[in-house]
């Protein structure tokens, strides 16, 4: 919060209460020009409420919203500057694609020829140049959502709001449209907020991800930061697959996991001795080696199940001394063959201390 002027959108101390329920609890955030920011979180975390407050469709209980330095906190939606796309597309069913896209332009009393040129330009941009005369019902879901995008962009708004735009679509269409929206957004350089509960969507599209939980922002960061350096236990668990192992901090900063001891090798552990913590480790960071040549600091275990996921295999390993849960490790199918991995095979597991993250645990 050093530079107050450059942000395209600045949210300051926004609180939203519905009766006794606090949907947003003092949320502050700055979004830069041309950025695509994802609001990511489970349902009920407040991400859609925040988007609707930015759009003026809900009114915050307190707090300020600045767009390009202008206070828009109390402006009705009609007087704000944004385009919006909803999960349901919200295309006008009785109007042609052309009329849908032109809807906001016609209202500005632009010359007809100019409207026509702009609609043609937008339809070409989204790859549906020939569909102008059709009705929304005659297009597929993915096509309809692209029309909704074109309609929202038609008036060249300073801000584009996308409310779970891909959630109603088939998995394959979703992945394709993900790329298309991102490309379009970068080409036009329009500041964009995307609300989603799909972490893959957030990680693959966003410049920055805002992870939200229970009305609070848990972390703001690039997709890489969010994934590899989660700021809280919630983020680590919500984004990506994770091993979560209950541990207790020992005297020499080592971690006691079940009956095992994990040396942290100099990695600072900012907890006092005896503190209950949770150790997080991504499955791809777990190192599995053969039982014949035990690596130092590794634990003995046995492969209990193998989940085939296509590009990789996920092993569930029962580590001696950790009775309550399996340690999950990812393996490429090629390595599977090289290591002769099969159920019941004894292995050694090491948890590299450079990859683990430690968060306090409510004992």
């Amino acid at each position: 919060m050093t530079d107050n002027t450059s942000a395209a959108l600045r949210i300051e101390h926004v609180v939203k209460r519905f009766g006794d329920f606090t949907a947003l609890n003092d949320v502050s955030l700055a979004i830069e020009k041309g950025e695509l920011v994802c609001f990511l979180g489970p349902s009920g975390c407040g991400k859609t409420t925040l988007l609707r407050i930015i759009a003026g469709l809900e009114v915050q209980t307190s707090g300020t919203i600045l767009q390009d330095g202008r206070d828009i906190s109390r402006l009705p939606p009609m007087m704000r500057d944004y385009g919006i796309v909803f999960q349901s597309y919200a295309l006008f069913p009785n109007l042609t694609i052309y009329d849908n896209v032109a809807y906001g332009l016609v209202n500005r009393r632009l010359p007809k020829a100019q409207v026509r040129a702009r609609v043609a330009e937008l339809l070409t941009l989204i790859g549906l140049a020939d569909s102008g005369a059709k009705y929304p019902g005659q297009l597929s879901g993915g096509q309809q959502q692209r029309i909704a995008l074109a309609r929202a962009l038609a008036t060249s708004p300073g801000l584009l709001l996308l409310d779970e735009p891909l959630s109603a679509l088939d998995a394959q269409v979703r992945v394709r449209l993900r790329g298309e929206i991102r490309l379009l957004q970068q080409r036009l350089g329009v500041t964009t907020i995307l609300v989603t509960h799909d972490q893959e969507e957030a990680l693959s599209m966003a410049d920055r991800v805002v992870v939200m939980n229970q009305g609070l922002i848990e972390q703001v960061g690039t997709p890489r930061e969010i994934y590899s350096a989660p700021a809280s236990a919630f983020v680590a668990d919500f984004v990506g697959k994770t091993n979560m192992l209950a541990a207790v901090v020992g005297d020499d900063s080592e971690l006691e996991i079940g009956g095992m001891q994990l040396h942290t090798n100099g990695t600072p552990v900012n907890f006092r001795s005896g503190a209950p913590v949770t150790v997080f480790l991504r499955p791809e960071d777990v190192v599995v080696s053969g039982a014949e040549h035990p690596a130092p600091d590794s634990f003995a275990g046995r492969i209990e199940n193998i989940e085939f996921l296509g590009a990789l295999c996920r092993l569930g390993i029962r580590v001696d001394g950790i009775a309550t849960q399996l340690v999950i490790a990812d393996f490429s199918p090629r390595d599977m063959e090289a290591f002769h991995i099969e159920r019941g095979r004894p292995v050694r597991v090491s948890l590299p201390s450079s990859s683990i993250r430690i968060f306090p645990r409510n004992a």
Partner: protein
Amino acid sequence: MSAVLSPVATPRAITQRVHWTERIGHLLLLAMGAVLGIALFAPIFMIMAKSVEDTDGNFVGLAHFAAYFETPALAQSIWNSVWVSGLVMLITVPAAFTFAYALTRSCMRFKTLLRNIALIPLLAPSLLSAISFIYWFGNQGAFKSWMGETQIYGARGIVLSLVYATFPHALMILITALSLTDARLYEAADSMGTRTLRKFFTITLPAAKYGLISAAMVVFTYAISDFGVPKVIGGSFNVMATDIFKLVIGQQDFAKGAVVGIMLLVPVFITYIVDLLVQRRQMAQLTSRSVPYSPKRARAFDAAMAAFCWLIAALMLAVLGMAVWASFVKLWPYDLSLSLNHYRMGLVEAGILDAYVNSIKMALWCATGGTVFVFVCAYLLEKTRGLDWVRPVLRMFAVLPMGVPGLVLGLGFIFFFNHPANPLNGIYHTMAILVISTVVHYYSSSHLTALTALKQIDNEFEAVSASLKVPFFKTFFVVTVPVCLPAILEISRYFFVNAMTTISAVVFLYSPDTMLAAIAILNLDEAGEIGPATAMATLIVLTSSAACFLYYLLNRFLEVKTQAWRKPAAQA
């Protein structure tokens, strides 16, 4: 930094500025609330007030109620009303259920035809059936001998006539209820080898349970508040509805009339609340994933169902047919040759045809003005924002009329609009008051039709419009109205037909200049001019049918015209 700057005390919640376009919506909403307040709440309030004050306006507590219960004849009417309505309910609901079951669960033929025949009673005033039964079984009736020592006049006639009149109301509710069942439940039952009877009691009946309760409530309410039937065929058998009329019009005893009005309001309001609760549950039952049931052929079952339906249809046609035929008969029962005498002499030359013209005028006003009011109000309630304190009140106003018998509403209108201190008393005895009372009386069903249609369209149209800087009223005209046109037409048709056939609310409010067709029937019948009465009833049925047919054509035309976007080609 920010922690220091932010104030410690929680400030008042932020309010958004209101755009001028939204202000237009708010003003409209307030105006509509005021109209409903004046035309619904105020009259009902006046009834309550009248029932506890004497002729000089002094508060007398429950004295009128006490006097009422000490009049044995009046107290007897309560019991009469209740058991007659209960009996009608017990006959109509099972019969209508069987009919609806046949329409939805059998493969019999001519379903549409049978359904349309069963809906005929909706096209006529309820007293048509009473007149017809008099022709069949009355003192000079075709089958008087069937009655033996007894008479059709009285409870028997009332029950028969009301069963006829209420049948289609129950039928429509039950068809909807039975259509809701999920076919997959039956498939699951079949896969477990469930017997037919068990399926009926474990799947069909529970699914239709709320529909059954709802139908029972609607039938009971209709029967207890109907006025035309007991007036025509009731003879000396008194019910609350006829008591009100006698007290108010005959004896000008407004206070006692108000007391009976409240006594009538109570059971109707109770059933209305039950119905409201039940409907809420039924809504929750509906899931978008349900698979519609399609019946399989079963020769014996289909034949039995068809036989039952044709029997009902034949009875329906016999009732209507007798009235129509009688309207052409020269002099019942002595000269059965056909003529147009009742129309020519009984209506045209007697100057009663004006009433028919008035009815059409009023029906057209309701079908246009009423429809616009209902739809705009439902739209503003459902799709716009702001003015949150008005909305719950208006929502209540919109569903309240269903719980108020027409007679009670009409009585309230007298009390309120005829009050010398009311600046609005200029509209008393005008066409306007007839239109307003009819629109209010039939408000709830129309409102629910509008609401259902509005709920089906995307909730974010207004949000998208606002983001595109398009005022909501433009989107209303360009998108909402075209998309909801079928529902709007249905509301308009409903208003037209009901305005043609209604008696209860308007019977207190017409003047010689604004006499309506349905009321003319009542007056003709009372004067013993039963021939012209049937002629007028026939005219009403004809007009309602023609209107329904026109609306049907309009709808078909619309369907073809909007096919491009309503019925999309196979999805790409």
